[in-house]
């Protein structure tokens, strides 16, 4: 069966857009409920349970209330930018998802429908390009609010997002080296033919995971909106629907980041331990099964976000920067080298791409991962400025003694 073309392509794309974005927004709403109930579960309490069955309508009530609330515009705020900022946060968070394939191709009377909204040949570059736009929402919100807390939040946000963007991109380069392609569908296909890349590229997965927590501004990286320090950070001055848009953007980013991790490292829509799902002929049943497999994996990652949020304390700003620039970046960079050399070596040795190929890389990565985790353990790296400051004080004192 050949892919759909012409007006059928147009109409299937429209339908896909509606379904996917509607689905993501529903998932976001649902996930705010899951997060609150999940928090309750971790914290020995109930969580919202009064509105609708088990409190499931709580997001609806919150949303409607915010929709009808008064919009505030602080005096001296830059009116245009102030209004633009939530949109700048909201739109990239949603459209990043466009290139992620979320199931096996679906056969229809008009032809084979690709599982992603836009099956771009430069899929991964598109993701890097669009997701880095999200930082503008944070920065502009912080700057335009005419509020010092917002400004600090915006500055923190921009520094953090830009720093971790680099590590995120670099750790994904390892995937690209191994996949030999930047089309998302191809990356999935390569994993289906060997092992999920989380095993041969475990270090890259770890750095990618950390970076995506930072990219989504979630604990322990929620410095731009650190409640105890900056009240609400960059969105301190936002009320009603504009605030809701930041909220939705945060959760959409979580969904997208989870989907990326699934696609790059967990085989995308692949069902493990069987080749049934990744060989033609494509059927509706396969579409449904792989669709379920994909979202199951995404939901697992989303749950990890909730779990981590209610477990860990927050980084300090300089620790965050240390971790990003002095740990993640060199590690990701070095790891790309290692993987490139390993891939070249395996190619030179004539090892065919497949299970054995993956397992050799897994062994290499496991050693490196062990070293990395040992290094990241308590107080070896994340000592922070206080230790440095003390060293400086001691040096000052010594100098003064010398002078006297």
């Amino acid at each position: 069966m050949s892919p759909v073309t012409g007006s059928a392509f147009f109409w299937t794309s429209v339908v896909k857009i509606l379904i996917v974005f509607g689905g993501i927004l529903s998932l976001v709403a649902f996930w705010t409920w899951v997060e609150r109930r999940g928090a309750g579960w971790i914290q020995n309490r109930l969580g919202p349970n009064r509105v609708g069955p088990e409190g499931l309508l709580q997001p609806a009530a919150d949303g409607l209330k915010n929709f009808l609330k008064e919009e505030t515009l602080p005096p001296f705020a830059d009116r245009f930018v102030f209004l633009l900022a939530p949109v700048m946060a909201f739109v990239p968070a949603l459209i990043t998802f466009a290139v992620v394939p979320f199931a096996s191709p679906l056969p229809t009377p008009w032809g084979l429908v690709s599982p992603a909204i836009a099956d771009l040949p430069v899929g991964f570059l598109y993701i890097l390009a669009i997701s880095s736009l999200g930082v503008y929402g944070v920065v502009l919100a912080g700057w335009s609010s005419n509020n010092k807390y917002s400004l600090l939040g915006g500055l923190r946000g921009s520094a953090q997002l830009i720093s971790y963007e680099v590590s995120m991109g670099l750790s994904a380069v390892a995937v690209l080296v191994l996949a030999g392609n930047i089309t998302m569908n191809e990356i999935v296909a390569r994993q289906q033919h060997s092992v999920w890349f989380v095993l041969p590229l475990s270090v890259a997965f770890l750095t990618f995971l950390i970076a995506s927590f930072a990219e989504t501004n979630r604990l322990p990286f929620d410095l731009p909106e650190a409640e105890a320090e900056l009240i609400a950070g960059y969105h301190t001055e936002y009320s009603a629907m504009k605030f809701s848009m930041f909220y939705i953007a945060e959760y959409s980013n979580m969904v997208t980041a989870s989907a990326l991790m699934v696609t790059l490292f967990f085989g995308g829509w692949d069902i493990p331990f069987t080749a049934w799902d990744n060989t033609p002929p494509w059927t509706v049943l396969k579409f449904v099964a792989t669709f379920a497999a994909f979202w199951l994996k995404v939901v697992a990652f989303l749950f990890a976000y909730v779990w981590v949020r209610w477990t860990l304390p927050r980084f300090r700003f300089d620790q965050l920067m240390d971790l990003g620039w002095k740990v993640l970046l060199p590690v990701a960079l070095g790891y790309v080298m290692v993987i490139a050399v390993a891939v070249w070596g395996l190619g030179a040795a004539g090892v065919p791409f497949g299970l054995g190929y993956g397992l050799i890389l897994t062994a290499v990565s496991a050693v490196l991962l062990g070293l990395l985790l040992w290094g990241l353990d308590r107080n070896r790296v994340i000592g922070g400025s206080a230790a440095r400051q003390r060293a400086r004080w001691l040096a000052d004192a010594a100098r003064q003694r010398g002078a006297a």
Partner: protein
Amino acid sequence: MELKRDASSPPSTASTLERAGFVSPNWVTTRLDDLVNWSRANSLWPMAFGTACCAIEFMATAASRFDLARFGMERVAYSPRQADVLICAGRLPFKLAPVIRRVWDQMPQPKWCISMGACASSGGIFDNYAMVQGIDTIVPVDVYVPGCPPRPEGLLYGILLLQKKIKGESVFDPGLRVEQLANDQGLFLEPAAVDELSEPFGNSVHQTRSA
């Protein structure tokens, strides 16, 4: 009492609406009211203006045993811009009075206020030079929760009462949320009303003599 926001009037708003000549209540407006009030009553994000002992009981209310989250209220908004209900938990000295007024002014409509505890409601045992004798001289209060401090159950009951009150409001009532200064002195009540509200009562009437 020139304050236009009728915080104390009964929920029936027909007369207000007719006076305003705005729209007469009909099936559509009441259904819409139900929907809007349902969402507002069930998503009351508190602005916790915690000052003293009552703030500790507010924390207890938010904690696991009493779990304010059940009512969708665990998202304590520390930014007044995102808050719906101001919970003044604790005593309010004059030095803090402009602060609570500013926080109230920063909250977007629709907004409500719960006065938690004896001190916030009336000055409590602090009938002296430092203490505002009831925050209702500064911000309009919807629900007073008595107690020193009120138990968490008391606060929850106050919140349920507020939900009930919200469910009786009408979206089409233009006079409901108008606030204006009573005079040109920056007071929200006439001076005589402030004095009357602040008069000593109960045991503190006798406590004017040292030794």
